[in-house]
């Protein structure tokens, strides 16, 4: 086709038609009603605290990833036993966001959503658009196992805080994730290596490891956030919860705290001394973790999902365990303080047709039995206390469980990484530059502080406050 085929007039005519049609067509994307239908309810009682209508259908949509959806289906069995007439529509899917976004916009979401995985929905945006039910009522309801104990009191520390957006608790996390540094226990025992408590000991250990021809550390260079984690843990241990708060609240010069710079220097030192496996900066998580499982590197930063993720490539007798990040000295928190947070977000959409049923279903899903099944089948810590009591755990899961127990209330959880994804990206991009030593620790601090300042000034981004 040549440009002569299209006359100027025909282009104009087409443009005019487009211009006329545009407002009409454009209207359809946001034409959903936001009023929502009030969901029908039955009578409340001690065993039915939300007043679920027994014959109301319930739609449950779950992300079907590494954890599967068997534990959800089991809980649906319990729900059906309780409410004989209820028909449950269960969907185990991958792309939660793509599937449910139009339904939220149209005002007809399902009753329960597990919003997890790549391409999940933005919970902050959902909350701002009044699409989510406040779950306070659920927290204050009696727990499934013991009517005298509120559901709120069965949870691990941080679960309520993690699920609170803008003062309302809308996100109920099912799993509990702890972050740390991972190593093969038999490898360390064979060489007589002890897990270091201080950074000085870590550097000495790295020297010893290097002598055996193994790279002391590797990391998932393609996704630099893995390396951000030990850095932030060391920084917050030194600066305490006050530092964490000032960082989360975007206070001026929060990142210029001396312990942040010290942590950046420590991370830069690792690569400066040649303790990182060569080429790590270009490896994906699968590649770096595979190299680590093959014994090419001794230590790797990751979270408690690592065992499940590596299942198919871990050699027998590798027995991975998680160690806490060592302290830089002058720690204001326990030396055992770790980064831990809850994950696997469950939501009850406020425009669902059976909101009461959704709440009641979550009460069943967060029962001790369901949690125990979950811990047993997927090898992950659930977000209620004592769920792993009395079950045989793998070395990995018991090391995570032990680390969470030792940390007690000193768990570190950064809110800014959830609230401000643009800051998160700026921090992680800079960490990659720091680890590859293209920028110095001082430049790293400058860059991150500037990103935080720019964000604080940006009026188009909603700000939150950590109290």
């Amino acid at each position, binding site marked *: 086709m*040549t*440009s002569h085929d299209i006359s100027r007039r025909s282009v104009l005519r087409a443009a005019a038609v*487009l211009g006329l*049609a*545009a*407002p009409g*067509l*454009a209207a*359809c*994307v*946001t*034409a*959903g*009603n*936001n009023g929502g239908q009030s969901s029908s309810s039955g009578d409340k009682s001690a065993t039915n605290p939300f007043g679920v209508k027994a014959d109301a259908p319930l739609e449950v949509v779950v992300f079907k990833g590494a954890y599967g959806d068997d534990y959800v289906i089991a809980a649906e069995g319990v729900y059906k036993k309780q409410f004989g007439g209820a028909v449950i529509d269960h969907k185990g899917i991958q792309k939660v*966001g793509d599937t449910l*976004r139009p339904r*939220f*916009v*149209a*005002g007809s979401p399902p009753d329960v959503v597990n919003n997890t995985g790549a*391409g999940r*929905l*933005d919970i*902050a*945006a*959902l909350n*701002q*658009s009044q*699409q989510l039910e406040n779950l306070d009522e659920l927290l204050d309801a009696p727990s499934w196992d013991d009517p005298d104990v509120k559901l709120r009191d069965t949870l691990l520390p941080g679960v309520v805080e993690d699920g609170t957006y803008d003062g309302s608790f809308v996100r109920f996390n099912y799993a509990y994730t702890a972050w740390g540094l991972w190593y093969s226990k038999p490898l360390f025992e064979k060489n007589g290596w002890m897990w270091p408590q201080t950074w000085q000991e870590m550097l000495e250990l790295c020297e010893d490891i290097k002598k055996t021809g193994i790279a002391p550390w590797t990391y998932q*260079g*393609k*996704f*630099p956030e893995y390396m951000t984690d030990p850095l932030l843990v060391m920084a917050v241990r030194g600066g305490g919860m006050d530092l964490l708060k000032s960082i989360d609240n975007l206070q001026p010069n929060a990142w210029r705290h001396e312990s942040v710079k010290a942590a950046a220097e420590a991370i830069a030192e690792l690569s400066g001394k040649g303790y990182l*496996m*060569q*080429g790590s*900066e*270009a*490896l*994906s998580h699968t*590649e770096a973790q595979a*190299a680590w499982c093959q014994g090419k590197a001794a230590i790797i930063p990751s979270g408690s999902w690592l065992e499940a993720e590596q299942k198919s490539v871990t050699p027998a007798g590798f027995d991975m365990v998680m160690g806490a990040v060592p302290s830089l000295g002058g720690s204001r928190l326990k030396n055992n303080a770790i980064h831990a947070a809850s994950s696997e977000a469950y939501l009850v959409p406020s425009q669902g047709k059976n909101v009461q049923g959704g709440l009641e279903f979550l009460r069943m899903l967060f029962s001790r039995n369901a949690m125990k099944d979950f811990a047993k089948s997927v090898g992950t810590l659930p977000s209620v206390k004592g769920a792993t009591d009395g079950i045989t755990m793998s070395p990995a899961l018991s090391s995570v469980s032990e680390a969470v127990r030792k940390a007690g209330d000193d768990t570190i959880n950064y809110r800014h990484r959830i609230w401000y*994804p*643009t800051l998160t*990206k700026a921090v*992680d*991009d*800079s960490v*990659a*530059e720091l680890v*590859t030593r*293209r920028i110095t620790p001082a430049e790293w601090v400058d860059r991150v502080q500037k990103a935080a300042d720019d964000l604080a000034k940006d009026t*188009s981004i909603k700000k939150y406050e950590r109290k």
Partner: protein
Amino acid sequence: MSVLTRPVERAAAPAPPAPSKRRKRNRGYGFVIGALAPALVLHVIFVVSPYAQAFYLSLTDWNGVAGKANFVGFDNFERLAGDSLFLDAIKNNLLLLLLMPAATIAIGLFLATMIQRGGSDGRSGVRGARFYEIVFFFPQLLSVAIVAVLWGFAYNPNNGLINGVLRAIGLDGLARSWLAEPSLALFAVMAVMVWSGVGFYMVLFSAAIDGIPREIYEAALIDGASGWTTFWRITLPLLRDNVQVAFVYLGMVALDAFALVQIMTVGPGGPDGATEVMGLSLYRTAFEYGKFGYASAMGVALFFGTLVFALVALRGNKNRTELA
């Protein structure tokens, strides 16, 4: 009387066939409309309407899940101008636009010429031309996701194919962390784009060269023209239209590049924005940051960028060379 009646009779006489004729003509239109309507309706619903919606959304602050969007005027476009990551993306897309189509077309032309006229006599292709034609076309059969994953493996600094080959032939010094060095990463991505595109354009150009009358080459060879001269004076001028179309297509690929960057690169879009492209910024803004309004503004900017490019690229079509 007769004067009056005749015209009436005349008018009356041909009258009967008229309705049927009209009906026939209407049937003709009916067929055309019937044939076009389904396609047109689909086009309006799935192409025109999303475009229109994107234009409208680019003027709002829609977050992707709300039932309503607030009108914010041109705020999103003003923000775009100050968004350093997006400006990086534009720079990278322009660099791709500058180099990738030219490299792909040059290599494609070279291979096509070799396949059609590369033999020692200058009249036929190199030995095994058919084989090369098929082999070079292979990448075209792979989906872009597979291409990205395979090249991701090849670029692995420790056990990847490229560093492996370099080390095997003793060039250890040239082994690099291809996708993790800011100065190399974009070129590493570009190389993959050229690799995966070259086969298609080779086939396109090869078919076009095949269509050039052989006598022209014969005459030139008899006059003592070298292979180089016949390429510049005969092949290239007569392939002008094909090259131009190839340039438009490749330009659009260069302005996109989303899939390769998303799958292959560090970050993705890194290291430190070195491989950021507009499509990736758009995707991240919409699906990770939940700012669909702002992302639509990026999409609209990309739309106009591509449109301007296509118009400029097609303008050069005026002085075309026709076969006599």
